[in-house]
């Protein structure tokens, strides 16, 4: 579990770094890994709760004039670097479950990612 989470974090970071290159917009066909964006505006995660299929990459982007950081309460991934304005952090959720996360700089900011089992395709992990 821990190892898969770490590898997922690495994949997530890689995906995040090439998002601008078009992965997010690669088309809507079923085989393409799903991607979901969460904005950070006015010290709020938007949307605050997101439900996704396993294998989905969630990308947070900070739109505030102050840095924020993403940490998950169950330590499924290592906390993000501090996100300055317009910086992003991505993580690919491979394991179904409910993930509570928060801004480790402003912990009153909280959000939830619900990961459901992927259907119709085999997940390898």
């Amino acid at each position, binding site marked *: 579990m821990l190892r898969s989470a770490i590898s997922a974090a690495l994949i997530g970071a890689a995906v995040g770094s090439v998002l601008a290159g078009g992965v997010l917009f690669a088309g809507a066909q079923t085989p393409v890994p799903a991607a979901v964006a969460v904005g950070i505006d*006015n*010290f*709020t995660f938007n949307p605050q709760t997101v439900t996704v299929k396993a294998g989905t990459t969630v990308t947070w982007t900070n739109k*505030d*004039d*102050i*840095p924020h*950081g993403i*940490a998950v*309460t169950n330590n499924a991934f290592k906390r993000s*670097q*501090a996100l*300055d*304005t317009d910086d992003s952090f991505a993580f690919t959720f491979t394991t179904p479950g409910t993930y*509570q*996360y*928060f801004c*480790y*700089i*402003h*912990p*009153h900011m*909280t959000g939830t990612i619900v990961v459901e089992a992927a259907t119709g395709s085999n997940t390898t992990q």
Partner: protein
Amino acid sequence: MSDRDDGVNRRKVLECMTWVGTGVLWTIAGGVPHSLGIMGEAVAEEAKGLTFLQISDSHMGFDKPANPNARGTLEEAVGKIIALPQKPAFMIHTGDISHLSKVSEFDDADRIISQTRLDVHYVPGEHDFLDPEQKLYRDRYGAGTKGAGWYSFDSNGVHFIGLVNVVDLKAGGLGNLGNDQLEWLEADVKDRSASTPIVVFAHIPLWTVYPEWGWGTQDGAQALTYLKKFGSVTVLNGHIHQVMQKVEGNVTFHTARSTAFPQPAPGAAPSPGPMKVEDDKLRTMLGTASITFKQNEKQLAIIDTPLKS
């Protein structure tokens, strides 16, 4: 400020104080810190005893519209400190030295603040623990401290306690001291005489200012129970980038301005983010504080001084 006969009437003293901008000049008189008002004037009048400065929330590296030049306004604040007619004994910095915990930001802060030629006692803000290994702050400022950087020292009969409430923050929570630090605090003050004036300083307010914005410390009340026996406790904080004060029994709470950017009053905006104001108003909302303590008087005087009045 006429009721200096004894300390019972601290509330009155506080009422007659004026709160202005930039730095708070703190005076400790016989036990209770009170601010002296605007730095220049106040220092001249109440120069005896112990006077120290509070500077806070430098946010080196901040360059957003609320203040594209946070380095310049820190330099201005330092220039005012250098120009003070009476040299303060030392300075406390209540955290958020840097904006993103970059080496260059800490370097800038050190270079500018050291021009005051004052000893500076630091506590960290949450912006000072953003480097991946969370070690830059401790490497620079942590010598002789415990845990994430808490410590105490004595000066002129006053016991100063620097606390850290910005690490290991919990989802949905406020500032956090943690059990290790609380135990240390209890032991640190246990054998001290109740007549010892106490000054506690930390980044996030120890009392609950506005929980909706995270402006408070979840175990701050626990820390204060250890200080109940003392006749004079002054709590100095930063974090909220505005002057706010509360007096509760023997405890005076006070927050200092930032030198970098203002933040809105609680609930006055959708979020506590940096507040953009008219250019000519910015310097009235930034500043430092001065605190003076006088033997045989009960009050510490706190003077908040803006960069521009």
